[in-house]
């Protein structure tokens, strides 16, 4: 018997609930939960929901970016950053999750999915150090 991957289950849930509202959506969700309970997969609910969120984001053109900076970004800079990320990932919507990290010294570090864009001064210094001491 083939094992059910979290991604496959999430995709099946997405397909089952897609374009549904009200009673139909409720029924589809109930069937989904019953299926998980039946297959003893309720312990993996949080992972499945994360995958489902990724699928929905992908389908709806939403990009979630975790941004780390040494100092809090101004509203103007956040708006500029959203614009840049939208253009880079051709996204309809960008959700920023910002955090301060003094060790970065300057610049910013962005993580979108598995991709990390490191534009921090600490990273530049580390690169310089590696370049000077191979």
């Amino acid at each position, binding site marked *: 018997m083939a094992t059910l991957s979290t991604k496959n289950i999430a995709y099946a849930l997405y397909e089952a609930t897609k374009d549904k509202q009200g009673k139909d959506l409720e029924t589809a969700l109930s069937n989904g939960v019953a299926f998980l309970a039946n297959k003893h997969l309720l312990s993996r609910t949080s992972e499945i929901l994360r995958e489902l969120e990724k699928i929905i984001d992908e389908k709806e053109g939403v990009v979630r970016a975790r941004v780390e900076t040494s100092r809090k970004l101004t509203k103007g800079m956040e708006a500029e950053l959203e614009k840049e*990320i939208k253009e880079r990932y051709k996204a309809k919507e960008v959700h920023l999750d910002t955090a301060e990290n003094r060790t970065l010294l300057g610049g910013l570090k962005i993580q979108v999915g598995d991709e990390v864009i490191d534009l921090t001064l600490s990273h530049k210094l580390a690169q310089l150090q590696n370049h000077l001491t191979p």
Partner: protein
Amino acid sequence: MDSFIATFHIDWKIIVAQAINFVVVLAVLYFLALKPLKKLMRERSERIAKGLDDAKHNATLLAATQKEYDDVLAKARIEAHEIFQQGKIDAQAKRDEMMEEAKKDVETMIANGKKTLESEKVKMVEEAKKEIVALVVKATEKLLEDEDTKSYDEQMVKRVKKA
């Protein structure tokens, strides 16, 4: 003749008897003394002759043995000399070989020492370089900690699209 016989009172009978007596004594002497004595003398002469022959033979044998001994000794001397000379040559060759090996070993040791020294030098320079760079980076980090990096942050925000 008669007067002579009368003068000397020669009695032919006595003379004959004495002659017979003499012959008997002579015969007795011959058989009992002279013959064994002659035999004894002959045997002694033979023994002496044999002794002389043996002595001669022994002298010849001794001379031959002496010659053989001298020959063997001379040969042994020559062989010993040759062995000694060969030994000297071998020892010289061995010494030269050992010297050559020792020379090579010393050269290898010097080369290895030089290599080790060179690698140690390179290692030391690399370590010093690393430490200097680490110090420079640390100092830069310290300097940047209190710097206002707003303009840099803005530049980086604009570079996100191309990064």
